[in-house]
């Protein structure tokens, strides 16, 4: 396992909570896709949960602000709140990069 991007075979299960097509939700999905393609190519899945359609699902991961990304796998569970525009912070939050 490398400190930068975990074990090469490890599957990443990411869940992004959005609010329809709000600008920050769209930006978050765009930023997340870019980070995943760059750092986890071929071994990630993104599940998008639109809380405008089903707000009750916010309870599962205790979501208070949108967008919020939840790393379900690999454990431990991690949450990152915001549109993921700060790539460095996103990488640290996902533990794809060590804190400098």
């Amino acid at each position, binding site marked *: 396992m490398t400190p930068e991007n975990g074990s090469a075979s490890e599957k990443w299960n990411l869940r992004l909570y959005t*609010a*329809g*097509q*709000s*600008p*920050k*939700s769209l930006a978050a999905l765009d930023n997340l896709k870019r980070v995943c393609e760059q750092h986890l190519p071929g071994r990630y899945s993104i599940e998008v949960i639109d*809380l*405008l359609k089903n*707000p*009750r699902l*916010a*309870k*599962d991961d*205790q*979501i*208070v*602000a*949108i*967008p919020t990304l939840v790393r379900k796998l690999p454990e431990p569970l991690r*949450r*990152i*709140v*915001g*549109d993921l*525009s700060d790539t460095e912070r996103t990488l640290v939050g996902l533990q794809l990069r060590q804190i400098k």
Partner: protein
Amino acid sequence: MEPISADFEKELAALRDKLEEAEDVRRAITRGEVDAFVVGPGGSGRVLLLANAYQRYRQLVERMSQGAVTATANGHILFANQRFSEMLGVPLAQLYTAPLESYVSVGDRARLGAFLMVSARDSQIEVELNRRDGANIPARLSLASFADGYASLLVTDLRPLQWPSMAVDALDSIRAALEKLNQGVAGDAPGRDALHAISEEINGLARMIDEMIDVEGAAERKGSA
């Protein structure tokens, strides 16, 4: 000094995590990285969007070619887009809070009232809209959503759908007039030639209209298949 127990350390770590999460939310809010919040006890509640999160929808609705109206269950207009205002020939500012039925022909008002009370999604009715200049517009009102007591309607101007049949009627009238003219200029060769040329042009137009109707019919059949 007493040693720190394992339970206490565990509790401390959990509190640190919660503090970190709260700090993360605060940071995201202050940096403007979120545009919606989940509110309500135990996550049971609703999603509140910040005003700028609506901007994309607002632009879409403002620029679309269909009319859009949000009305109360008793038919008072709370929102209308520019297209609806153009359809009626009434300034947008005058539409807000006006009764929708005042822009619908008298004979359709009872059906409109019943329609607005219905919460079934995708239901629709066809009515005559009254323009300010006195003209009537056939229109289809489709219920896009019904939430919190408000109906959001899409308003489609049905006149373009009637244009092909109106054009066919107009061409038939022109043909009949030409036939009369043809009889009147029986001995006038240049006049007959001119009328023949006009008849050919009209036949060409009629074929184009027939083809348009065929294409539209095929598209509708494909859509309903």
